[in-house]
């Protein structure tokens, strides 16, 4: 087991190096650089431009350096915890990301819980009542969430929440709580605003989860041990929950790796529409304005999350399920 873990960890290193290079290439791919997009932004509002300042910034930001040098500086900086500098904010990347990360994680956790709360009962019901009207109806409901473009759903919900409940539009809390220490009022305000993003982001993931749970459960329910159990008179619900559900849960564990990054990145557009103080809007804005170190470090962070997540879920699976562990050992 120890060797297996070590091996997996060592494999991560070349992957990460490779990813970091690809990230850097990708954020440099679009034509122009940050200062050019800064100029055009000023222009689109009709503002005047101080060309001397632009030239000074170009030199100061090192945008005139060759590509490889910029990459090496950035990549080696990350090793010692220096994630580069955000041109847009004029601050180190770590300062910009700061507590946005915290709110992002909160939203993600709520979203995962929400998804599970909906997906589990529906998945179990549809698996046990295959091809019934209930199966079709509930699956349809789940798919509706998947099929509606998130950004439109978000905008519509935002508008009606404002008209009917008077919730302030967008954001994650009422304006007066921003930059304030946490208090009861702030928590309530956050909860008031939280449901819209959670529902919007959650609904898109629910359908996939329902379908996979249903498929896995169906596979298990066909197995002889279930038949045996049923023959021996085990109550139906216990028969469902005791073994088949547990076995089909494996895929949830296998999913942990990709879950967090996919929720963070899947929520990006929604977060932009809802103007959430999470990491998504920063990432998109950074990509659009070619704030390259901010965007790059962000992407690296997400990639790292995935790679680590995959590792954890592999290890967890190996721990949980002896069959996989044996296969894993046998393969080498």
């Amino acid at each position, binding site marked *: 087991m120890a060797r297996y873990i070590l091996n997996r960890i060592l494999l991560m290193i070349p992957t990460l190096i*490779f990813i970091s290079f690809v990230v850097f290439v990708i954020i440099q791919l*679009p034509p122009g650089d940050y200062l050019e997009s800064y100029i055009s932004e000023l222009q689109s509002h009709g503002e005047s431009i101080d060309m001397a300042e632009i030239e000074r910034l170009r030199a100061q930001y090192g945008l005139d350096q060759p590509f490889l040098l910029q990459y090496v500086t950035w990549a080696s900086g990350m090793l010692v915890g220096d994630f580069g500098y955000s041109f847009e904010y004029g601050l180190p990347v770590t300062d910009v990301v700061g507590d946005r990360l915290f709110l992002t994680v909160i939203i993600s956790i709520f979203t995962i819980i929400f998804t599970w709360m909906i997906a589990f009962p529906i998945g179990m019901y549809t698996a046990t009542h295959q091809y019934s009207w209930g199966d079709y109806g509930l699956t349809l409901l789940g798919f509706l969430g998947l099929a509606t473009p*998130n950004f439109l759903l978000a905008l*519509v919900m935002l508008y009606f929440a404002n008209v009917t409940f008077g919730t302030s539009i967008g954001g994650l809390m009422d304006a007066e709580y921003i930059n304030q220490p946490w208090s009861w009022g702030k928590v309530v305000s956050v909860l008031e605003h939280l449901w819209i993003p959670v529902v919007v982001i959650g609904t898109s993931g629910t359908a996939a989860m329902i379908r996979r749970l249903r498929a896995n459960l169906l596979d298990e329910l066909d197995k002889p041990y279930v038949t045996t159990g049923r023959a021996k008179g085990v109550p139906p619900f216990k028969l469902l929950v005791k073994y088949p559900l547990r076995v089909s849960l494996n895929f949830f564990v296998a999913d942990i790796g990709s879950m967090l990054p996919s929720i963070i990145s899947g929520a990006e557009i929604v977060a932009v529409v809802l103007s959430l103080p999470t990491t998504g809007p920063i990432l998109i804005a950074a990509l659009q304005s070619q704030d390259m170190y901010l965007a790059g470090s962000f992407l690296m962070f997400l990639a790292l999350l995935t790679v680590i997540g995959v590792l954890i879920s592999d290890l967890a699976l190996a721990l949980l399920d002896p069959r996989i562990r044996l296969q894993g050992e046998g393969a080498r």
Partner: protein
Amino acid sequence: MSDHFVSRKPFDPQSIEAITPEQEKLFFASQWKLMWWRFKRHRLALACGVLLALMYGSILIAEFLAPYALPTRHTDYIYSPPQPVHLYHQGEFVGPFVYGWQYNLNMDKLLREYEEDRSQIYPLQFFCRGDSYSVWGLWESDLHLVCAPEGGTLFILGTDRLGRDMLSRIIYGARISLTIGLLGITVSFVLGIVIGGLAGYYGGWVDATVQRITEVIRSFPELPLWMALSAILPVTWSPIWVFFGITLILAMLDWTGLARAVRSKLLALREEDYCAAAQLMGARPARVIGHHLLPGLFSHLIASATLSIPAMILGETALSFLGLGLRPPITSWGVLLNEAQNINVVAVYPWLMLPVVPVIVVILAFNFFGDGLRDAADPYRS
């Protein structure tokens, strides 16, 4: 010992277990036939399949189905809400007709307000002459399924800010939106099979490399990849090439899932005896993969491909939202939805959000259809 003898008569399987004609039909049926039988039992999937076939059929005759041509503008009917189609006039059956459609300008709110003019009745015309168009670039025609009666208007789903008929735009938009999924999936299908097939068949370092590449691609949030890739599409490309480019981008990021599925299936299948037999008989890898291994998993592949088409369609709408995908004057559902993406539409002109309906319908249909296919893909299961 002499009691034993070998019968020289040909073996008659019926002598052991008689099979009925029905059984014979079942046992000798081809794999595809079995799948079809099984698929047929899944009513909803069947219905969705038919629906999809109809929708794809419609893109061939979009010009005929749409009441107006794509560029037609009605500057007197801007932001018209959906115009109701009536059957009865003052309790009397007239057949489908519309009333006159008038607007007055509310200069206080800067809003065009529409109302029916009940004194005028315009019965709808079917198979009628309207805006002219060219049929598949071959000949000119001006035949439409339904068009506005002489002197009247027919905006079943309303009009947009330039007075363009939404129904016609949705019908034309289907062309791009539906094909983008199909084209994209074809590309990712080919990529997935070839790359996954090589990895699965050869194993070893090929497999390891492919594994790493897929891991890298999958550990990327897809949004930035889309953004970066669409930003590098050459600016000199014509809209149609941009369209292909976008399709290609969507496909480039989609093949990894398929490749993984192919690989793991192949890893299992290549240990089967029939595969070893083929190899021993000197079959080349291409033949072994293409002729012996792929058919074993083809049905699964089709099913999973069907299920990823919706993701492509949604991907196109998301890209359009970011202003990176297709842009006007090209008309796709994503472009239409992008134009609906502001508070004015939600609050004042909600009918502009209607393109979301075909998107939802197509995605649901593909999902149910794909589900049915997948269930049917394993015809030997109980």
